[in-house]
């Protein structure tokens, strides 16, 4: 009896174990060899409901057993080695970690549940791995993915440029940092690839303010270029709209008052040839290329410095060379043809001021005189018609009226 009981216990353990195994097999996500590690059940949930249905799993202890060991790498087909070292801390300290309102993300949420020993085929190269890994991000970050889809980086990737930036390149993989409210991070992130432009930006008035003084009022890369839907800045449309872009800060009175910068710059630009033309193009044919000067043609693009900086393209000494970019024969006095965003006054551009004053007197004077004279004529005619109770004009008393016949008046 005792023996049977002992057997019974074994049978019970076996049955329970087998049942549990069956349940686990049934619940285990089916993975065929053709399926990538990155095709995650979340996708299906999303397609059904349109929202992210799955809660983050958060428990990374299982993967960490191996992946928290430093120096673990794997050799890939192209000879590069892929670093496999990821500690759970990286996740918990990232935006996907404890600060994530949805909960801490688990390894399997992105990488799929390919438990050890891994059966998935190894990626061809570490770059290939990064590009595929980034596609997982789009499953939760739907809006960002939509924006990114039409960006210059996505198009580069589609055209076979493997070096075009993907999510992970900018945001990091496991230690994703918040970029919002940290514009200096954005500049540095872009600068990792766009090194030459970063160098220029770093020396500019905006770059100095942001990177040295920590001033977040100034534009960083993404302020002008956008975040995910970054478009080619060499299109006619970008060019024609660029003055509005600069104006979004430089015509903002509250913002500019902080730095004692005139907000007149945009209006004075619009009132001049270049600005009028560009504004027309912007309105009517934003896609038609115009080479009329926009803000950055004169002030520089990433290397903008104030006009009193000797390196500035709009510094007095460099102004002629700046004009000559478009007006190659411009003579030394030519830059004075531009009133430089200033309202003409007695001291500054007195000639323009004088012309303005002249016509401010002449126009009302002449037109007022004409209106008065016309008024007297109308008055005379009205009085005459009233007096005669008939049509006609005031008959001048004249001795040579003999041949005239007012009734034939047309």
């Amino acid at each position, binding site marked *: 009896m005792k023996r049977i009981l002992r057997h019974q216990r074994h049978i019970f353990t076996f049955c329970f174990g087998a049942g549990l195994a069956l349940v686990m097999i049934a619940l285990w996500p089916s993975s065929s060899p053709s399926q990538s590690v990155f095709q995650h059940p979340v996708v299906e949930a999303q397609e059904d409901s349109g929202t992210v249905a799955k809660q983050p799993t958060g428990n990374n202890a299982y993967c960490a057993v191996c992946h928290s060991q430093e120096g673990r790498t794997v050799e890939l087909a192209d000879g590069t080695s892929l670093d496999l070292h990821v500690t759970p801390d990286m996740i918990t300290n990232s935006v996907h970690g404890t600060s994530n309102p949805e909960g801490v993300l688990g390894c399997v949420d992105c990488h799929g549940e390919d438990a050890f020993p891994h059966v998935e085929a190894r990626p061809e190269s570490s770059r290939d791995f990064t590009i595929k890994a980034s596609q997982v991000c789009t499953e939760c970050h739907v809006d960002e993915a939509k924006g990114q889809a039409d960006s210059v980086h996505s198009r580069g990737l589609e055209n076979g440029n493997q070096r075009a930036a993907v999510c992970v390149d900018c945001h990091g993989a496991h230690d994703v940092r918040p970029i919002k409210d940290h514009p200096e991070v954005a500049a540095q992130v872009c600068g990792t690839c766009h090194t030459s432009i970063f160098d220029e930006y770093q020396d500019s008035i905006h770059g100095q303010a942001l990177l040295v003084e920590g001033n977040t009022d100034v534009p960083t890369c993404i302020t002008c270029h956008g975040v995910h839907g970054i478009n080619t800045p060499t299109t006619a449309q970008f060019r024609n709209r660029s003055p509005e872009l600069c104006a979004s800060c430089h015509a903002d009175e509250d913002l500019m008052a902080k730095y004692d910068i005139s907000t007149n710059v945009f209006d004075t630009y619009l009132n001049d040839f270049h600005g009028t*033309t560009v504004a027309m193009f912007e309105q009517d044919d934003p896609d038609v290329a115009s*080479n009329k000067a926009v803000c950055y043609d004169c002030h520089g693009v990433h290397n903008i410095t104030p006009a009193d900086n000797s390196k500035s393209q709009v510094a007095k000494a460099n102004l002629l060379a700046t004009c000559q970019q478009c007006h190659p024969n411009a003579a030394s*006095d030519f830059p004075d043809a531009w009133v430089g965003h200033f309202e003409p006054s007695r001291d500054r551009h007195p000639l323009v001021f004088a012309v303005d004053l002249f016509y401010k007197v002449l126009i009302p004077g002449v037109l007022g005189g004409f209106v008065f004279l016309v008024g007297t004529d109308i008055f005379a005619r009205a009085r005459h018609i009233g007096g005669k109770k008939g049509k006609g004009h005031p008959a001048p008393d004249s001795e040579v009226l003999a041949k*005239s016949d007012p009734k034939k008046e047309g």
Partner: protein
Amino acid sequence: MAAIGTTAKQHYVERFGATERMEHFILVISFSMLAITGLPQRYASFQIAKDFIQLLGGIESIRIMHRFFATLLMAGSIYHGGALTYKVYVRGSSLNMLPTVKDARDLIGWVMYNLGLSKAHPKMGRYNFGEKAEYLALVWGTLVMIATGFMMWNPIATSKFLPAEVIPAARLAHSSEALLAVASIIIWHMYNVHVRRFNRAMFTGKMAVHHMEEEHALELVAIQEGTATPVVPAEIITRRHKRFWPYAIVMTIVLTIGLIFFVSFEDSAIDTVPRQPVSASVTIDPDAGVAEAGATKWQTLRCAECHGETGEGVPPIPAFSVADFDFKSFATATQRGPADMPAYGPNQISEQDLADLYAFLRSTSE
């Protein structure tokens, strides 16, 4: 010039000849079109002006139209100068468009009459004070518009012989004068010859006698007395012709050349030339480049990743041939980044690197 005639209906005076009417017609066309294509530019920030500009094919096309009619107006002005000289010199007409003290008296008398303070309507000559004011305003306005128009059309030439500040001043004067001219035409001219009474003299050449009595009573008397047109003997006219025509031909040629110069002297204010890329400032002698060092740097600076082993290109990057570049343009292309290529400043690719790379590419293309 002036003679009294009679149609079936009324007595009339022959006031304007065919050429004068043609001049007026050209003036009407050029003035109206200049106003139509010019004022929307003055008020370009208003939506209605924007819509109108779009209707006429956009800002570039409206500016071309403006220049076309400006040229027509200037050609008309050259003709007018010749015709005026002919009338005054050959035909002996007086300069009856110039204002006199009598015009001031006529103006005051007319206002007094209108206000009922005087019973007598002033008697006026061939051109009354209102017409003289309009003509002189037109001459003044046209001269201002031509001068300021030249400055805007040819800003570079202008800045060579005048302080360049005249160009923004010219722009302001041009648009202010335009406003004054158009408003004057609407208030004064339209009222006088279209509203008050439709004066057809400029279209038919004829003016009814009773109409003459009101506006040009003295001229009517002169016509009736036969003293309106100076009598010049035929042989004097022939002699004057001999002097007038050579002068007229030379002046026409000179002014026409001036006009052509005006409209074609420079084009950067109309078609801004494509931007000149700012050349890279490289001081190194390209001969200092070492091809072998360049071959290594081609790989280490990762040029080969996009451009292939010698510039043949890795799809989708197109091929380029170093033969198309001198050293300066090679440096400019590298530092400025043509097409989709990122710019590599001196911090990434030094001048020595550029020289080495250039030497390497040269050696492969030989």
